[in-house]
């Protein structure tokens, strides 16, 4: 609650912002007789100083300087003194302090038991840039930025519909991070929306520094390596998914927007799939699915076949494989695991280094060290090919979170293949599929539409991308139920 006596309120504000070197506070007297005290407070450089000076201070100090404010109503005072539309009133001083910390300005008026919060956010922020992770040959080149408002605007620009709703909330006891839940009313399934909001409201955390924090709190399974929330940096993708009936969660300070619910097939979809002809993109999708499968299954298959079922392979190929391995002193399993781990290390190093050095490291690691290892007889050329092929396959999947899960699962399949041969490889694949079947995202089976679909029509945006006019309903739509 606020007190009518301004000094008591100022005392609370001063105590809250004690030792804040970057806070700007000023008490001034307005009106003809300078008999009405007002107090303004904002954080330097988080608030737009020009806006404050031009639309608030100038109005209060100059605009109403000849007015007798003693019997002047507060609303008239604000109408005359503040020339910006975006203001709100708060009857809780601590809420108003939170607003100051979010970049807004707080105006306290003597004799008035409400704080006026003026929207003056103006902190430095990165503008709209090009996407770095979800690159598309055809389609928009805009990516989300760190500012929640830029991100919601980027989505709104694409869906000019009054049904595009944006529910805002704050999460984080200390960070009080702004979260916007965007959805298309009438299209979204109400049960899913309610569940999303419920889970967001239940997040109990000190600070949200990126959308990844929220992701880990709201996902269905905490023990699965597979992503159960989709992150995107492309506004066109977020808009498309909202139109499909999914919910977008925009987190302040994060350039990634979360999309829920999610199914495995979503991770194989890229924005440009819908910008090009369906025949071509269906072919590309098939390649992606095959690549995704080999990204976790290929090394295990190689071990199983070479160690346990060499007679399965055609004679000439088997001889070539055996010949290539003849001089290698270490067992196949150790060879594959060593190369896989080396590849992982190279990949990790390549990500952390600056792009110019990263690409050089890729060349040095991939070609020179690989070649040297083969020539030294430490690894067979076939293993280098298998590991490289596995790596390429993982890059063909357009989602890094899914690829990371495959990278982990690959070692389980390798272990089973090493112990039980081809039978172990089959068991590994069955276990992975069983695990995928057991996952759900906000009540939606993760494996949809390959299972739990109501008909073949729902498969139209999965392995095959059907013509746009044929794709209307999915499990996310309200129409599905």
């Amino acid at each position, binding site marked *: 609650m606020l007190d009518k006596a301004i000094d008591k309120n100022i005392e609370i504000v001063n105590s809250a912002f004690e030792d804040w070197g970057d806070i700007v506070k000023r008490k001034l007297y307005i009106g003809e007789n300078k008999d009405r005290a007002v107090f303004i407070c904002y954080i330097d450089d988080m608030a737009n100083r020009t806006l404050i000076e031009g639309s608030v201070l100038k109005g209060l100090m100059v605009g109403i300087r000849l007015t007798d404010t003693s019997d002047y109503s507060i609303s008239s005072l604000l109408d005359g003194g503040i020339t910006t539309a975006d203001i709100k009133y708060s009857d809780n001083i601590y809420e108003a302090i939170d607003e100051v910390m979010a970049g807004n300005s707080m105006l306290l008026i003597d004799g008035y038991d409400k704080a006026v919060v003026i929207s003056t956010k103006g902190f430095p922020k990165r503008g709209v840039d090009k996407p770095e992770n979800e690159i598309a040959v055809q389609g928009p080149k805009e990516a989300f930025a760190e500012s929640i408002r830029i991100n919601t605007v980027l989505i709104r620009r694409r869906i000019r519909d009054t049904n595009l709703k944006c529910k805002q909330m704050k999460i984080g006891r200390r960070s009080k991070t702004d979260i916007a839940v965007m959805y298309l009313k009438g299209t979204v399934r109400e049960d899913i929306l309610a569940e999303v909001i419920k889970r967001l409201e239940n997040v109990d955390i000190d600070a949200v520094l990126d959308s990844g924090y929220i992701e880990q709190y709201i996902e269905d399974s905490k023990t699965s390596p597979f992503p159960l929330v989709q992150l995107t940096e492309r506004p066109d993708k977020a808009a498309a998914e909202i139109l499909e009936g999914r919910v977008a969660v925009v987190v302040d300070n994060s350039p990634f927007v979360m999309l829920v619910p999610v199914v495995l097939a979503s991770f194989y979809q890229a924005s440009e799939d819908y910008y090009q002809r369906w025949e071509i993109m269906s072919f590309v999708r098939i390649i992606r699915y095959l690549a995704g499968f080999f990204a976790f299954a290929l090394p295990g298959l190689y071990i199983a076949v070479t160690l346990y079922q060499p007679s399965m392979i055609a004679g000439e*190929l088997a001889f070539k494989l055996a010949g290539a391995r003849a001089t290698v002193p270490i067992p196949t399993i150790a060879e594959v695991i060593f190369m896989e781990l080396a590849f992982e290390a190279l990949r990790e190093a390549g990500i952390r280094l600056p792009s110019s050095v990263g690409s050089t490291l890729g060349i040095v690691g991939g070609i020179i060290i690989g070649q040297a290892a083969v020539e030294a007889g430490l690894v067979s050329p076939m293993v280098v090919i298998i590991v490289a092929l596995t790596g390429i396959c993982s890059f063909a999947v357009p989602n890094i979170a899914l690829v990371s899960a495959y990278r982990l699962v690959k070692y389980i399949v390798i272990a089973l293949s090493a112990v039980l041969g081809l*039978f172990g490889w089959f068991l590994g694949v069955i276990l992975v599929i069983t695990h995928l079947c057991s996952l759900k995202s906000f009540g939606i089976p993760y*494996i949809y539409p390959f299972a739990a679909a109501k008909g073949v029509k729902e498969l139209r945006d999965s392995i095959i991308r059907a013509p746009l006019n044929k794709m209307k309903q999915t499990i996310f739509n309200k129409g599905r139920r």
Partner: protein
Amino acid sequence: MSNDKISARQICALTVLEIIGVDFVIIPQLAIGLAWRDGLTVIIIATLAAAAYSAFLINMAEKYQGADFFDCCRNAFGNFPSRLIVWGFIAKTVLFAGFCLRVFAESLTDIMEGDIPLFAVMAAMALCGLYAAYKGREVRGRLAEIFLLPLLAVIAFVLICGVSEGRADELLPVLEESGFNLSKAVIVVLFWFYPLEYILVSMPYIKDRTSLRKKTVSAVLISGVLCALVFTLTLIRFGAPQMRSLTFSVLEMMYSVSLPASFIERQEGLMMGIWTVGVFFTLSAALYNSGICAEESFGINSKAALVICTVVAVFAGLLPENGDRAYYYLVSTVTVMECIYLFVIPIVLFAASILEGRKNEGRNMD
């Protein structure tokens, strides 16, 4: 263990995979053993009979308002007899799973070139089945939807590739066996449609049962047709005497079919995949159904029930001295126990429901 509801379509896919899981290997072998070349006729008649019988079973279950099999037993026979029935069901299902595991492991270690211990294969397969069973009915339903088409496609592909390598005259002459022999063979083959009783156990958890009868009949027909095709191909490829002498003639047939334009010299690996997936479904169904019955009957935790059933199944599988004995025990278990569980009890339940209906009518008249 999740007991979420599953759709009629998923039940249909599950039933197909549970039937063909081991049946596509065993039914042709039984048919040739009992009726020689008339095995094809036997499989066709048994399939049609099983389809009709499945419709009857669904009808019977509907008479009990979709209650599960053991609730129906409790209603009809009382508490203690129904408990005995449940215990019998658990015992026969666990034994079946164990012998099935052993037969699978024996056939697999024969074709695998590496020296993998039998127990390792059995334990690994059992754990895989346990994992799926632990995930519950809904997950198994989804798995079935995913695996059904690829599995059928691979089997169909192998059959198409193999058909040109056989001699059609091996199919003739037909109808040489006596009517008694044919009937006996039909009944024995009919027992192998035992997964129909799993539908009865799952009745309360099936969503939208309006199409259940149709879907179950289709599942039985698909499985039967597949077994008939596999029988035909094995027969025309090996001839009746050789087919009869082999323990797993169907597997041998599938290994020997040469796939065109393939860099795979021998497709044991591919066949191993089909066989593994099939047994995985059979096993997970057996473990799941015995697990939920043990949970309800003994009041133990579902995880504990599943683990106990799995451990007992693995040990039961290790008991026979060799694969042939395990196969013999497997066939005997199904023949003896399914006679009771697939036929006697459902028919008595049906009769009881009719009598109960008449009694109610009589009371209403009074």
